[in-house]
């Protein structure tokens, strides 16, 4: 007879796989990205997807929204976008002969928000998302408006078109659970993309889960225990990204100006728990932590001038930090 948690765990795995399979009906390849996006969603985190145009970033997010049967919102970020265009604003409204200021909800009032090309908006507009992402509420004119649960921001950005873009501030980046690189599909995947999208019949995405499922998954995964040894390993990895740490690898000391925050450690732990559950385990292993480290840490490392000049890839630095943690 299955225990309560065992059935919760089984349900978690099944739901996760169902969503993944449903998204996979439309999105060809990108298995790792899809899985990581789903991990972040389960953990209640936001994801920044980075990739050149046309790789299916936006399609992935919309497909996920459909599969989750959640309220979906999309903002196409442009330089002239204003914060009020994001969070909403007060408008003068006449009701029963009386005029009053009424808060008109912005597009953030949804469950899944697609912030497309987020780096094209000005920092002011980008910052409008800060409270939304962290506190999951909007404050306008001194009045806070909570967002529906669950709430995720899935943002995209183009790494090559830098003209007219505004790099995300560190505080903003830190609020993203994962930053995922969407890579070019291989030959077979290319062919499959063409086959699926070139005809009259495109795959129909059915909602396979809803918000309550996601919230329940979040509660379930937080039950997974972590051994002190594994936790120490996680902490060592995060601390090894800091150049001032004595045990940090030489590369980190040389090329990193500022390391990852405790929020990164929280993200790694939560993501590690998801991976443990997906693997059918009821404890987190060091390999779970290692597997999610790059996604959780790369966008949180601020490179030094030498690092920028030498074109150092943060993923290499994270690998060094992991090696040093053993």
């Amino acid at each position: 007879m299955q225990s309560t948690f065992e059935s919760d765990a089984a349900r978690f795995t099944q739901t996760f796989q169902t969503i993944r399979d449903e998204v996979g009906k439309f999105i060809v390849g990108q298995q790792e990205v899809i899985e990581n996006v789903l991990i972040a969603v389960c953990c209640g985190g936001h994801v920044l997807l980075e990739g050149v145009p046309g790789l299916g970033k936006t399609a992935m997010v919309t497909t996920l929204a459909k599969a989750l049967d959640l309220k979906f919102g999309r903002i196409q970020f442009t330089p002239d976008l204003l914060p009020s265009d994001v969070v909403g604003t007060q408008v003068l409204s006449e009701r029963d002969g009386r005029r009053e200021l009424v808060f008109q909800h912005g597009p953030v009032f949804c469950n899944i928000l697609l912030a497309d090309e987020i780096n094209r908006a000005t920092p002011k507009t980008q910052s409008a998302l800060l409270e939304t992402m962290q506190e999951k509420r909007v404050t306008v004119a001194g009045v806070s408006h909570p967002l529906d649960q669950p709430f995720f921001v899935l943002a995209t950005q183009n790494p090559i078109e830098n003209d007219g873009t505004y790099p995300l501030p560190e505080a903003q980046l830190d609020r993203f659970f994962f930053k995922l690189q969407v890579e070019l599909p291989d030959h077979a995947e290319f062919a499959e993309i063409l086959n699926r999208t070139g005809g009259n019949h495109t795959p129909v995405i059915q909602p396979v889960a809803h918000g309550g499922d996601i919230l329940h998954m979040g509660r379930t995964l937080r039950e997974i225990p972590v051994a002190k040894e594994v936790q120490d390993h996680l902490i060592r990895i995060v601390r090894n990204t800091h150049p001032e740490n004595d045990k940090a690898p030489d590369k980190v000391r040389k090329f990193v100006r500022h390391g990852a925050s405790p929020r990164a450690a929280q993200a790694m732990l939560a993501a590690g728990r998801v991976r443990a559950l997906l693997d059918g385990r009821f404890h987190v292993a060091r390999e779970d932590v290692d597997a999610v480290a790059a996604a959780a840490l790369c966008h949180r490392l601020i490179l030094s001038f030498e690092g920028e000049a030498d074109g150092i890839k943060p993923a290499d630095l994270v690998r060094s930090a992991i090696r040093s943690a053993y």
Partner: protein
Amino acid sequence: MNSTAIEIFLHAVRRRLDGGARRQVMARVLLAAAVTAVAWALAWRVFGYAAPRPGYAVVAGVAAVVAAVWILLDRCGLRYAAGVADRIFDLKDGLGSWLDFQSAGLQGEIYQLNERYLAHQVAGLDLARLRIPRPRKVFVAALVLTISALLLGVLPHGEGVRNRLAREELAAQRSAELDQQVKAAVEEIIKALSEDERKLLDPGELRKWAKEVGVTRDARESEKQLARLEQQIDKAMHGLEARQDEAVLKLAAGELAKSALSDVRQLGKQLAARNFDQAVRDLKAMKPAAKSKMTPEDVAQLRNNAGKSRDMAQRMADGARRRHFGKLNPSNKPQGKPGDPAAEQPQQAMDEMLEELDGAARELAKELEKPGEPGEQTGAMADKMDGKMDELGKRMGQLDARQKATGKLDALRRGLGEAREFAQGKTSSLGLARSAAESNQPGGLEPGKGTDATRREERDAFKDNGNLAELKGRQNAAGPSSSTVESAASGSGIAGRANVAKQREFKQQLEALVHRDDIPESLKLGVREYFEKVHETDGH
């Protein structure tokens, strides 16, 4: 239930790891011990020695102790075993986490679930997958080295070392014999010491000297011991010397020899020959012994002895005076040296004693010249004279004891000379005790022992009478040697003094002949060639 299964598995892993660690440790220790043993044995071999067998036991013992301690300290803990098992069986930190939860005492549904899941996982695991490396190469290397070390250990000593050890053994044997004989000789001397001699030579001191000669394997040390003993004997002999007394008595003997009285001359002869023992007896015979009631024969005897003793005393005193003729302080007393037994009690100088004896003799003679029978006064004077003569006799007895003690020490010292040669290996027999015993004999060897018959042979020019050096050496042994082959037209080929002289004479004659002008050149050439050949032979 689940936890028991996990624990059993974990302990099995630890045992397996410990077994592997034990093998590693044993291989490494064995290798280290083998390397040590080889190096150690090689070091002995380099110096020519065979490696001592106990060394192997020491190396093996130390290796065993080190291995035991290492194995004990190197036992892996459960956490280490869990880490290894997690890695090898791909348990993804399952065992490590389980141990952590257990030690933290965490309980609950999730932990039970985790435990059940882990127990299920480990139940299907085959421990054989946990491969423990077998250090075969290390074992083989250690085995080869161990065999090499043992082989090095069986090799005997090198030739040089064998010779040296043989020399040391011989030196030890000789030293032991020396030790034994020195002690025996000293005991022999002590046994033969008279009461007077014992006052001069302390037996305890003699035994102490003998004790300093110990058994040693070093021939040089043995020689040094003997030299030290010889120095002690020399010092003691020096302390026994009574030169001033002997000098006075020698002068006195010279004067006594001029006497018209045969007894006095006889005493002089004994003194001159330093035969003090007999001299004391002669002196005693001349004592003018007085009795309370004397017969006419006694009186005549008294007068006769008084006359002899008067002449003897006067002459001896004259002799003593001759010694101090021209000296400012004729009564210089002999200064004893520290440690000199004779100097411990200050003695009256011999010349003073003789002066007093002369005085007493003169008084007695004057008394006897008085008319009438000798009275009490004469008896008192005769007693005084007797007393003085007793003193002189006693002094001579002491000199006799000194002389005998010196003789004994001298015999021992001479024996030590022979002993040193024995220690050096120049002679093969040692008769130290015998020579010490002989010193106590009046002369000659012990009954039944004669001198070497070869020494009684008459001189033979061709045999060189012992001047021929005969070199004996061990075959193939290192050491200086010389041999000369004399070519000769006839004879034994052994060069002796006579035929060398003859050859030299013949050579001179022929060389003179060669230089003569009237000799034909062809004849000269023949002679020259002859000598050139002779020289060539000498040169080789």
